[in-house]
């Protein structure tokens, strides 16, 4: 039995390299809570961008509210800049069904009308249920639906992956 091992730091370096050419001069980074937000924070620094990246949550626009109820409350959206007419680079750690991205897009549009939205993710694990594609992904893996893949960050700020389930 082989255990999948993803080197998050290595993938981050790859993501940074691929994102750099995509970046428009006036673009703004927005990270999807929580893993995407961590990535956006580091990218903001490494890309030499001024200010802070935005953090966006899918909580209020999820399509599973009827069955799951309201999720936790610590993942609030915080966008320290205006959205109208802005080119947005949306960052997420793992892209799977695409539903989180759909919810986040709806949330984003509640704040204004962006000029464009480009999606960059660390890992694309396939299994899409909606027509959503990233412009950039550092890795593509296939995992059984029973497994959950999440980005982790330790006290020193180092990234790693956590795989839960069988």
């Amino acid at each position: 039995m082989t255990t999948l091992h993803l080197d998050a730091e290595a993938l981050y370096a790859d993501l940074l390299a691929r994102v750099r050419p995509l970046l428009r001069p006036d673009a703004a980074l927005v990270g999807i809570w929580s893993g995407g937000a961590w990535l956006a924070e580091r990218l903001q620094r490494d890309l030499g961008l001024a200010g802070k990246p935005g953090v966006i949550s899918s909580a209020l626009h999820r399509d599973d509210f009827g069955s799951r109820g309201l999720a936790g409350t610590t993942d609030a959206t915080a966008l320290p800049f205006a959205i109208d007419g802005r080119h947005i680079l949306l960052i997420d750690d793992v892209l799977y069904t695409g539903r989180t991205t759909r919810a986040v897009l709806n949330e984003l549009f509640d704040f204004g009308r962006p000029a464009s939205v480009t999606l960059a993710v660390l890992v694309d694990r396939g299994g899409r249920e909606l027509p959503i594609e990233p412009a950039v992904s550092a890795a593509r893996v296939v995992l059984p639906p029973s497994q959950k893949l999440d980005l982790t960050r330790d006290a020193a700020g180092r990234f790693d992956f956590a795989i839960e389930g069988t």
Partner: protein
Amino acid sequence: MLSKRNPQLNAHGELIHLLSIEGLPKAVLTQILDTAGTFLSVNDREVKKVPLLRGKSVFNLFFENSTRTRTTFEIAAKRLSADVINLDIARSSTAKGESLLDTIANLSAMHADMFVVRHAESGAPYLIAQHVAPHVHVVNAGDGRHAHPTQGLLDMYTIRHYKQDFANLTVAIVGDIVHSRVARSDIHALTTLGAAEVRAVGPRTLVPGDLKAMGVRVCHSLEEGIKDADVIITLRLQNERMSGALLPSAGEYFKNFGLTEDKLALAKSDAIVMHPGPINRGVEIDSAVADGRQSVILPQVTYGIAVRMAVMSIIAGNDA
């Protein structure tokens, strides 16, 4: 007798109705307050709507008039994208003798998903919650003297916003406590959230000794009651109290229990002054205090919408 599960919670301890703060665990109250914080930020956006209650019908059933409270519930429901129907019960079939439960049954047949109920009799929302279908949720907007849980919650949100931690707080509630559902909800919330001391302040006719059983210190002088308080909640004094031989006049009440700037100086210098509204200026509170720098009466109203959005979205997301 069998001890019954609190009808507000399902078998997993999740909130399905909001009928009273009493009996709700601290974790549930905290969840509501935290969620309210999220919704406050929604109210600052350009698009002040989220789709959580889209397609749901919220029926405002006010058997007792209140344009203010009804309006805030309506705004809250609409910001959650719900359809809101206001039922003016006084002019409707209930006045023609239709029983309370028949009214509910008829409305349920129109596929109501949530009832927001205000009623003159303590306990009415419990009766309603007992008789609605499993997927229907009930929010108590005030029942008789018993409870006004959303007001209690928004009062707690306000206190938490200005004072952060409940553990060291001395809170004085001043006024007609025996007849006040707001006071009861505030008292339950404060004791559950761990406030250091809650004082009930007023003349003996309005603040009887058996309030002690609710965990408050009873004070019959304003000076004793608000000394070194961190929070003062003043309650509205209703005219009916004068006719029931409970008080001689509003004037005498104001002289002895009205919150003026002088009296306010007895509390801590950073004490906040609250009032559930509407204010009777010159009866329970002086205009100078109501409009003064320590008053947080207007922010309370803003928080009220966010708290009601939080309550509705939480209960709508939990199954019976």
